[in-house]
């Protein structure tokens, strides 16, 4: 496999005010792979995820030390947050299409970035929806509200919306936790599909999901990365006792 490093995280500490939510994170995240973050609630998974596309910048009290580089460039020092976010797309826990038509949802990003030509937008929308494996289901109702479809479809529209800005990396924060099992599987298949082109980082509560789709898994506990390695190894033969306990349900 292609083991190019996409993100390199060094000694990352993150504080919410006085509360340290991330402790000395060191991690290399690889290109073209799915990296899963697992761990009990409140262990800092989402926090770390948001740190990667600087979504935490929006929270007043956040203080970050250490560094994250993307393709060797420090994302906090040498990159504009907005530019970073067009390169690192994000999909959220709750499907959150804007209350607009499906078309407008997907075209939102390109429009934001100044694309106005209808033909170009049409093309982007179609391509993105196809990539998100939802084109067939919605192509006849592009002008309908994106809220008028099922949760699973909404989530795929959200993924299409992210793909439309042609990111290099897609962050997903529990993208299926609000979905039924069938939609969940569709999204999982989609993620596996997408990793050919994009690096994907996914936070999940569902251990089996991490197992199913990811190549690498990081286990977080109270703000620390306890173990990080190949998913197979983590699920079959974790090195750390805490990881083993968490994975086998002997935690807490």
């Amino acid at each position, binding site marked *: 496999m292609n083991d190019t490093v996409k993100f390199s995280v060094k000694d990352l500490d993150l504080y919410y005010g006085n509360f340290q939510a991330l402790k000395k994170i060191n991690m290399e995240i690889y290109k073209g792979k799915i990296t899963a973050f697992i761990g009990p609630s409140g262990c800092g998974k989402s926090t770390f995820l948001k740190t990667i596309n600087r979504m935490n910048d929006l929270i007043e009290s956040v203080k970050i030390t250490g560094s994250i580089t993307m393709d060797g460039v420090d994302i906090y020092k040498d990159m504009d947050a907005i530019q970073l976010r067009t390169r690192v797309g994000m999909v959220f826990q709750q499907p959150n299409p804007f209350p607009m038509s499906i078309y407008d949802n997907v075209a939102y990003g390109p429009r934001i970035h100044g694309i106005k030509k209808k033909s170009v937008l049409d093309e982007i929308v179609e391509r993105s929806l196809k990539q998100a494996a939802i084109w067939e289901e919605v192509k006849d109702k592009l002008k309908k509200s994106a809220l008028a479809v099922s949760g699973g479809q909404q989530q795929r529209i959200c993924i299409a919306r992210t793909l439309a800005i042609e990111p290099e990396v897609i962050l997903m924060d529990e993208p299926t936790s609000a979905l039924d099992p069938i939609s969940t*599987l569709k999204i999982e*298949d989609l993620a*596996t599909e997408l990793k050919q082109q994009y690096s994907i980082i996914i936070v999940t509560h569902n251990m089996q999901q991490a*197992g*199913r*789709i990811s190549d690498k898994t990081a286990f977080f506990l109270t703000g620390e990365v306890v173990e990080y390695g190949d998913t197979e190894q983590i*699920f*079959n033969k974790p090195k750390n006792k805490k990881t083993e306990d968490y994975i086998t349900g002997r935690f807490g």
Partner: protein
Amino acid sequence: MRQTFIAQLEALNNDVIKMGSILELSTNEMILALDNTDTAISKKIIDRDDEIDLLEQQIEKDCINIIAKQQPLASDLRKITSIMKIITDIERIADHCVDISEYIIRLSKLPKVNPPKNLSDMISAMKKMVIGTIDSFVEGNLEKATKVIQADDEVDTYFEKITEELSETMQKDSNMVPQCICYLMIIKYLERMADHATNIAEWITFIVTGDLVIG
């Protein structure tokens, strides 16, 4: 539809079939080698065993992985657990091919004697069973599996008969004891191969019907 999962199952199935076809090859060659006490073929068979072992290990791992990641249930779970068992039996049959091959080499170093009369019949019965199991696995064919299970008695009968024959031969001609012992061992292995084929057939029955018939 769980695309990834189904693809994984598919791959697993193909690996088992691949293992089966290697086994078929070894079985056929073993028969050939036995007919001609051919050491070259025997050696080839012995060498091939690693391939089967590796495949078994691979499939074993895959099964555990699928169980860990995909939470298979019902027929899927039956299939995977059965495969885990089946590959052991396939590997064992292949092992016995190797064992037989080793005896063939041993035989080749001894003065040539006529093989026991019923040996070829026993071999073909056993071969039918092995091929039957592989077919029934590929096709998920309950009937063929049942036939395999029934055929085991035939092989056992041949085993008794040939043991008798060999016993007589040895009593008649003490010079032929070493060769006969080889043949004794060979038919024991053949009998075991048939047994393993029966096991596989029983697992296939389980896959299809969900009824556990462990004997």
